[in-house]
């Protein structure tokens, strides 16, 4: 009879104790949770780990997380400053691609983030190398390796010559998931100043006309022009998608003086702009 009352009390006590004891130790947080490792670049002192959500590089916009591990201590470095240089080896020349500076991720201790826009690749994914330069406590290090960049199924990046004689690259940067409804479309626009310099172009404008070629080039309403967002350094606008499936985003690029640099209106005779991106969801 007594046991009946004592047992629950005992159990309650046990659980209460076991719960509270957790608070004493420092929890180990996995800072790359949800990400997959793409590759490691190794030198004599460190291993540079590269992550993203897909676990591989694809043509187009790649958001990349970086972690540097000390080979000796096996600890992750928390005070590095990092830069990088992706390079494509062509038969007669080399060129790089648009890339961001690298910051430590918000609220992270060991993970640094940035992005690279690969505008093309070889059919077998070869040709690109990635060099990561970093400084820890005033000492410079560098790691370099060949990387594999696979071709995306859909055109999410486009490199072209504008009417002003300049080469530009547009790349779809977001959202990561499309939905039926209104989507906040983010597009990066870069100018190819030299083979190795691709700065962000500010204050231009992109007009948007999404179409479904599979549905007689059906369009959707309520799309807005993409304008430059100073904070995010990219162009943003509303993309409305009425159904799932394959969509072509027909674009026109205008410079700061509203001069058309690339792209045409979609008409029955001209079903697709020469400047476009694709998506499927």
């Amino acid at each position: 009879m007594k046991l009946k009352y004592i047992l629950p009390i005992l159990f309650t006590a046990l659980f209460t104790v076991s719960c509270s004891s957790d608070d004493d130790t420092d929890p180990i947080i996995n800072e790359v949770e949800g990400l997959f490792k793409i590759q490691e670049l190794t030198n004599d002192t460190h291993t540079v780990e590269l992550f993203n959500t897909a676990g591989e590089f694809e043509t187009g916009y790649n958001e990349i997380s970086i972690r540097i591990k000390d080979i000796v201590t096996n600890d992750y470095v928390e005070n590095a400053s990092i830069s990088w240089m992706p390079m494509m080896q062509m038969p007669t020349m080399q060129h790089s691609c648009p890339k961001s500076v690298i910051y430590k991720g918000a609220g992270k201790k060991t993970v640094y983030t940035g992005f690279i826009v690969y505008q093309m690749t070889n059919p077998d994914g070869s040709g690109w190398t990635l060099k990561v330069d970093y400084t820890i406590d005033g000492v410079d290090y560098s790691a370099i390796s060949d990387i594999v960049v696979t071709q995306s199924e859909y055109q999410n990046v486009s490199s072209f010559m504008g009417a002003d004689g300049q080469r530009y690259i547009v790349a779809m940067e977001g959202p990561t998931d499309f939905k039926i409804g209104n989507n906040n479309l983010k597009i990066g626009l870069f100018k190819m100043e030299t083979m190795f310099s691709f700065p962000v172009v500010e204050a231009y404008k992109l007009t948007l006309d999404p179409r479904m070629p599979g549905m007689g080039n059906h369009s959707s309403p309520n799309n807005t022009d993409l304008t430059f967002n100073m904070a995010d350094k990219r162009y943003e606008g509303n993309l409305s998608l009425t159904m799932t499936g394959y969509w072509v985003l027909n674009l026109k690029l205008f410079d700061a003086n509203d001069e058309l640099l690339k792209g045409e209106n979609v008409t029955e005779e001209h079903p697709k702009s020469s400047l476009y991106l694709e998506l499927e969801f």
Partner: protein
Amino acid sequence: MKKLIIVLMGLLFSGFSFAQEERSTMEKDTTKLEEITLVGRRKLSNYRQEKTLASIDDYLEKSNKITMIKRGSYAWEPSMNNMNSERLNVTIDGMQIFGACTDKMDPITSYVDVSNLQKVSIGSGQSGSENGHTIGGGIDLQLPNSKFHQSGLRASVDLGYETNGNYKTGGLDLEYSGNKFYFNADVIFRKSDNYDAGKNKEVLYSQFQKYNMSLRSGYKLNDRNTLDATVIYDKATDVGYPALTMDVSLAEALITAVTHTYKSNSDFVESLESKLYFNTITHVMDDSNRPDVPIRMDMPGWSDTYGFYSKASMKGSKHDLSLNFNGFYNRSLAEMTMYPNDPNQSAMFMYTWPDIRTLYSGIYAKDDYAFNDHTTLSAALRIGFHQNEIAKETGLESLQIFYPEIGSTKNRLLSSITANYQIKKEHYDASFSGGYGERAPSVSEGYGFFLFNSFDNYDYIGNPTLANEKAVEVNFKANYHEHSFHLGLETSYFYIMDYIIGSIDESLSAMTIGADGVKVYDALSHAQIFNVYLNSSYKFSNALSVNATLGYNYGNGSNNENLPFIKPISYVAELNYALPKFNAALQLEGNGNQSRYSSFYGEDETSGYGILNLNLGNELTLNANKVVLKYGIENILDKNYSTYADWNNISRQGRNCYLNLSYVIH
């Protein structure tokens, strides 16, 4: 709700507070405009005689008030006072049930069969608001009453064959009736190939096949209380829609109800009937039988409804009061998947009805007050709360493309009020009535997403911000009888405010390949619909009689355009010969030229037509069992014609010979 009931009752009674005189006799159902009785389908009737195995659609079409809009030979859409589905309230024995097809290919009349029903009660305009809110009227498909006849076991077999379309029908009915318990089971099967229009022109994709089963049982708990249960299962497969680009591979309904009835002869409350019900519909539209389509697609839809009603009828000294408290919860979901011709592209998907939940609860009260033997005043009121909710986040987001500011729910308060004054004298009777009613937009009108309408060739987008549609109506009806002569006039006028109809939005791009553009549901500030019917009959002798009806309809919107689906001048004339065991009827039926067609809403001019039908019937006795034979020829002259109510002008049936045989075993 209780408070509301008390308030309503108070209102009604205060209107007739001088009601202390002695009660005078009053004819029942004087305000119910028409009833089509199906129970007599195995009897010989001599007025617009029907086949024993005619479908519900056929029966409804015999009513003056109702026209059936046809997209093929199956699942016709009823239209009353020149208004269809959204503006009507169609119920099965007071139960709300909603079709699951975004293209109105499954009016709920297609989910029951004659074998399930006892009668169809039709209320024009606000007199049809007993079960829900309506503008054009209400159609209630009524199930049979409890049958404690002590008649024992009875069976009947029905067989039918029609030459046009090789249409075969078979039905079996089994009934047991004791004094405390009854049981009824019936099954009916229908199958038709493509029918031929006049001059032997085969109408492709007009075939159908369906069966319907129903089980009904009741138990008498005591003298006053009865419990009934009903299950109806209806399944149509391989239904072609020649007027549309898609067919239906499955239309399936399960309709269930449990009813408790309390009856008393002495108390103030004469009867109290309460019902709990559930029905579920699955509708699968596909185009796999069509050889040539711009894109393959599947469009399934689902509609589930849970509901209840509780209705009481009460008697005061001169009053006849009925109350009806009802509510339902419906879930409508439909989707569309399209398969691109380029096999590398993945299928395209959208919700065409993005999981819309409708919650309704309301109360209806009606009082008939008899001033004296020949004048009656009746008044009815319905007030209800109506809520729509977009349950799917995707659905809300997809509609926010068009209406960025909308939320997921929308509440409405709906009301309806009507009064009818009636005089009955020896040689004439007349009634005047007026009413006001409101309705909420239907799921398609409020929330449809790229619904293709092949009639005007536009994609339609729903509009959740629509205001309630409102109508003021006046009706007049008079009859004069003298010896063997009868003359009647019936007319209605509707002034509809915020009349919901699609309007072209040039800025939108059609989704359906080949469509002319996109229409968004919008409202005309007002529209008016008028109809008048004149009918007369003359009896030459007890056996021979003639009757005729002439009708005129008019419909116009505030944009000065004709409304679509307004019936042109119509006429029916019939010569009847009836003996107790034999009858014959020769019928001429036709429409005038549709000169006031609505090109603005996609109609073209339909020329007039007239057809001749001959119906015959015999009643025989075979081994003490009854045999009813009905046979005849429809469209004797094999005319190739279509009417204003035929979707995309598909031609109606050419000459058709039919034979229906009913064998009733006692």
